[in-house]
């Protein structure tokens, strides 16, 4: 039996918490003890963490302040406390406290670079667990992820040097050898890079093991497709999306059969959308059976987009941030969907929606081709292998 600590440090989507919770359930079923340190504790109710200890993950309250639009990995770090060694020292001290309290044998880092630093300092075994955006390629420099903004090589090098200087200043206070390059911070005993090359946010990287996309679609309320004629459209969007009214109008106008989960939807909009043909769930839906018979999937491009592809379903994507935008670009490149530039509440959505419905056979063929390529992939098997690898690592250490 091992003690496993989960850290989710960056990234605002609940997907991180859900993925950690699912993996922890599998580990707990095997007799391991789990603890969690999450950046957000406000949706724990949705996560089923059992009675495990839950810590506040140390994060900067000034995230993103005083820095421009991030273009590269170093920018992300500089905006999250890495701009000054003293601030980073504080964050690392907080993570060290958590890891010590958990007496962790192994850290699972879900987009948690500072937790990885703390584990390095304490000599705790560590793995990372996330998609291509959260686990950048181990290259010097880490290639910029932004497609629409250029960065000069000298600038890129300067920003990496800035973040690296903070990291090394902290490591030297703990008498730990300095890193030669920023990406060395991401060294782990195993990297559970949960995506496939076609969906990799960085577009390509040196020889790497891809563990396949991670998603959790087997939990939630069972909603059946309404009877009738119209195309079956699965909607998994947040009410705060500026295009939500247009989406509701389009679903009504095109006489779609709808299964929708739209967190934050107000009563007026719910009433406008809901009908015998259009089901609007109050709680998260079990997506697996719905995806099996779906003509079009509307989502933001989070982890669930990978599930859409693995079911061969065409997607219309509404990215809410840049990571999701990159996912949308990848799906568009596959021909399996269309990503909307953000945030255009008007005509673009109408045009794209009409095009997607008219042309869904072609998009479906592309999505199905992707599905065929990875026909042997299974989420359950992915989870089993990750658990087995974690157990192997812990055993190797104790042996």
């Amino acid at each position: 039996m091992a003690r496993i600590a989960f850290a989710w440090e960056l990234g605002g989507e609940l997907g991180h918490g859900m993925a950690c919770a699912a993996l922890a359930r599998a580990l707990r079923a095997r007799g391991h003890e789990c603890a969690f340190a999450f950046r957000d504790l406000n949706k724990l109710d949705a996560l089923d963490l059992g009675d495990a200890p839950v810590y506040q993950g140390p994060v900067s309250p000034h995230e993103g302040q005083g820095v421009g639009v991030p273009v590269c990995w170093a920018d992300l770090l500089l905006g999250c406390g890495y701009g000054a060694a003293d601030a980073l020292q504080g964050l690392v001290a907080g993570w060290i406290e958590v890891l010590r309290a958990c007496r962790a044998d192994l850290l699972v880092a879900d987009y948690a670079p500072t937790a990885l630093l703390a584990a390095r300092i304490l000599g705790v075994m560590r793995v990372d667990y996330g998609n291509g955006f959260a686990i950048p390629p181990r290259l010097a420099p880490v290639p910029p992820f932004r497609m629409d903004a250029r960065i000069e090589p000298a600038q890129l090098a300067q920003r990496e040097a800035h973040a690296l200087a903070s990291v090394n200043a902290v490591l030297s206070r703990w008498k730990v050898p300095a890193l030669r390059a920023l990406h060395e911070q991401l060294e782990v005993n195993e990297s559970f890079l949960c995506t496939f090359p076609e969906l990799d946010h960085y577009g390509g990287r040196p020889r790497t093991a891809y563990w396949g996309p991670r998603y959790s679609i087997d939990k939630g309320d069972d909603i059946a497709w309404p009877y009738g004629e119209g195309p079956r459209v699965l909607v998994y969007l947040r009410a705060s999306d500026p295009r939500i009214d247009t989406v509701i109008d389009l679903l009504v106008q095109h006489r779609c059969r709808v299964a929708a989960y739209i967190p934050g939807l107000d009563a007026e909009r719910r009433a406008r959308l809901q009908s015998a043909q259009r089901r609007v769930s109050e709680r998260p839906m079990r997506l697996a059976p719905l995806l099996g018979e779906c003509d079009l999937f509307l989502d933001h491009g989070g982890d669930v987009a990978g599930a859409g592809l693995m079911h061969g379903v065409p997607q219309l994507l509404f990215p809410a941030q840049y990571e999701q935008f990159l996912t949308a670009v990848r799906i568009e490149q596959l021909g399996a969907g269309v990503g909307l530039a953000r945030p255009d509440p008007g005509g673009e959505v109408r045009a794209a929606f009409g095009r997607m419905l008219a042309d869904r056979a072609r998009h479906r063929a592309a999505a199905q081709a992707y599905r065929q390529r990875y026909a042997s992939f299974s989420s359950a098997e992915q989870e089993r292998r990750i658990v087995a690898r974690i157990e192997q690592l812990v055993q190797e250490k104790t042996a």
Partner: protein
Amino acid sequence: MGRFLVAWEYGEGLGHVRRILPIGRALRERGHGVAFAFRDATRLGAASAEGFAAWAAPKVPRRTSFNPTPVSASDVLLNLGFDDVAAMRGALRGWSTLLACVAPDVVVCDYAPGALLAAAQRGVRRATVGSGFALPLATSPLPAIRHAAGDDEPSRRILDARLVEAASRACGAANPVDVHSLFRGEVNLLATLPELDPFGPRDEAYLGPIGVETGGLEAAWASTARPRVLAYLKPRDARFAGVLDALRGVAGEALVAAPGMSPDAARAASDARVRVFPSALALPPLLDGVDLAVGHGGPGFSLAALLAGTPLVLLPMQLEQEMVAVRLARQGLAVLGGMDGTREAMQSALGDAGLRERARQFARDHAPGRYRDAAGEAAARLEALAP
């Protein structure tokens, strides 16, 4: 010997850390175990460097839409997200984990309502320390914090009830919450003076300031030019550039502490008479013989200036500063600056002999050195709660 968890959950800037670190040190000197939980995890290094256990305080995300003019302390907490029951339940779970790890006998809360609530649930003894803002008078309903529309008694009663309902739901129905338990402990320490207490003067003991004169870059006056003006400003304040212009027009020499500014920008904003520093400044040597202090109304800087007999021009940016500034202006110890007119406020303050004399009288009333061991006194009061 006792174990203490000292928690800071709300409020910005350096003031909270500067206040609670000396208290932690004093407790440790008396043989107690001390751990800290900070709202701003980037400041944890200050505690861990001294060998204290240093934790990130569980947080409730701020509401995206909030009332810009809250009328009572309950309204402020609701604004800060305490009406989100799921979020509060999550934060309480975080506090509960932390309390289980640290196993304190006493939780000392510097504006830490979540910690107060979690400690009450677990039967841990509770104390508060602060500048008074986070400790509203224990009236029912809680008192109005500014005299504005909607701060009548029935409205405030409704706000208290909303806060109590949300907190009770987050705790589970078995634990009904009393509104005062979100703000008060068994011992409540006012680390300020009655003249600056946003709810003062009140019939409670004032320990005097803790840690307001510590830290910061050492600077010195470069000339004998008068008047000398010392300013402590947030560069993100929209008035910042205008204040620098006003200083150029009014001051013989001015020093400006602007923590958070980039060194390059501070250099660019400086000239021979007005020097801008991108960090806090060590105040005691500079305050000796200064003619005017300009700040936002944070209790730390305001106290340091007044204890040196220096009158203030205040440009509040947030609620606590506004309450302190209004109180000081009413007592004739400060002049309020508006959105514009900082220059006029400075000129009027510099030309006001009564203002200067009242500031000097304040300093005489609170003789130097009188509060030197406020942290030790706080520790002694807190220690009484430990087994």
